[in-house]
C-alpha cells in the first residue's frame, strides 16, 4: 500500500462523500457545498496518481489539470450561488405578494424595483415577464 494509493483512496472516499452530499441534501446551498467537496476529492486523486511517476518530481501534467479544474470549479460554484441568491429574492417577492394579496394593504415598498435590470425584471407584483 504505497503512499500514492493511500492518498488516492482517501481522495476517492472524499469524492464519494461529496457526491453523496450532492444527491442526499435537499437544500440548494448544501448541494453546491457538496459539489465543491467532491471536486476537491477528485483533484486529490489526480494529484495522488501523478505521484506514481518514477522520476523524483511528480508528473506536472496532472498538476496543470488540477489547477484548471479548480478554477473551473469555482466559476461554476460562483454562478450557482448567484442563481440561488436570485432565486431567494424571487421567492421572497413571491412570498410578499401572497401576504399582499391576503390583506389589501399598500403594495410592498417596491423601493428597490430593479429598474436597471433589462433582463425581464420581476416588478414588485411579480407576474409574467413584460
Amino acid at each position, binding site marked *: 500500500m504505497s503512499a500514492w494509493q*493511500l492518498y488516492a483512496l482517501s481522495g476517492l472516499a*472524499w*469524492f464519494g462523500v461529496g*457526491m453523496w452530499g450532492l444527491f442526499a441534501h435537499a*437544500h440548494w446551498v448544501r448541494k453546491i457545498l457538496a459539489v465543491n467537496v467532491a471536486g476537491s476529492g477528485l483533484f486529490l486523486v489526480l494529484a495522488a496518481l501523478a505521484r506514481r511517476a518514477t522520476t523524483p518530481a511528480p508528473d506536472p501534467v496532472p*498538476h*496543470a489539470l488540477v489547477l484548471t479544474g479548480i478554477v*473551473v470549479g469555482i466559476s461554476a460554484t460562483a454562478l450557482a450561488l448567484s442563481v440561488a441568491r436570485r432565486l431567494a429574492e424571487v*421567492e*421572497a417577492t413571491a412570498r410578499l405578494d401572497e401576504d399582499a394579496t391576503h390583506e389589501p394593504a399598500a403594495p410592498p415598498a417596491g423601493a428597490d424595483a430593479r429598474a436597471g435590470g433589462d433582463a425581464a425584471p420581476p416588478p414588485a407584483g411579480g407576474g409574467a415577464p413584460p
Partner: protein
Amino acid sequence: MSAGLAIDAALALVLPVLAWAVVATPDLRKAIVLFMALGLVAALAWARLAAPDIALVEAAIGTGVTGALLMSCVPWAESLTPASRRARADLALAGALAVVACLGWAIRALPEAGPGLTPAVLGALEVSGVEHPVTAVLLNYRSYDTLLEIVVLVAAAIGIDAVLPDDDARRRLAPPARSLVGVLSHLLVPGAVLVAGFLVWKGAHAPGGAFQAGAVLAAGGILLLFARRLRPVPFAARALRGALLAGPLLFLGVAVAPLVRGGRLLELPVAWAGVLILAIETVLVVTIAIVLLMFFPARVLASSRAPAATVEDPP
C-alpha cells in the same frame, strides 16, 4: 520512512472524515467553517504529494475565495425553499458507495509506477521558455486549456452580472465604519499585493503563476470590500470590463498571431516564449482578480451588512 508513511496514513484517514463532517453537519455556518478547515488540512496532503502549485491555488481559491463566497450566502440561505421534498439520503448513500467501490477497484488495478508525461515535459522544457514544468504545461504545452479556462471565468462573470445586475444596490452600502476588518485590511492588503507580484515573477521558475497571484490579489480586494474601503465597481462600467477583458484579448492575440503566418494556434516563437508567457500571466492576474471580486456583487454585500437582515427587505 515509516514516519512519512505514518503521516500519510493519518492525513489519508482524516480527510474523508473531515469531508463527511462538512457534508453531514446540520448547521450551514458550521459546515462552511469545517469546509475551510478541510481545505487547509488538504494543503498538507498536497505538500506530501509534492504539489506546491496545487497547495497554493487550493488554499487561495478552493478554500479562501470559495469559503468567503459560501459565508456570504448564509444570511439568505435559510429562506430558500428546498429543491426536493424528500431528501433521498439512503438512495444517495447506496449510489455513492457503489461508485466508490467501482472506482476503488479501478485505482487498485492501476500499475504501480506510471511514467506519465514527465520525460516528455522535461525533454521540451528548454524550448518552452520557462523552467517550472507546471507553468510550461499550463502556458505553453496545454495553453489552449488555459485559454478556454479564462473564457470560462469570463462566462461566470457575465452570468453573475446577468443574474444579479448591480443597479442601485450600491447606494445602500453603508459608509466605511471603523471596524476590526478595516484595521486588518490596512496591514494585510499591501502584503497581498506584494505577494501577488512575487508569485507572478516566481511562476517562471518555481511554483507560482497567474492563478495563485490572482487569488491572493483578490483576497486583498475582498478584505477591502468587506471593510467598505473599496466600492464595488458596477459591471456596466466600461473601465472594469476593459480591465477584465484585457487578459483574454491579449491571450487570444498571442494565440492568433502565428495563424496569420501559417503557423499553428498558440505556437509561441521559442525566442519570445518566456517574455510572452510572463506578459500573458501578468495581464491574467488582473483578469482573475477582477472576476473573483465580481463574485461579491454589491447586492450580496448590501444585504449581508446588517447581521440580522433577513431577506425581508425587498431586493
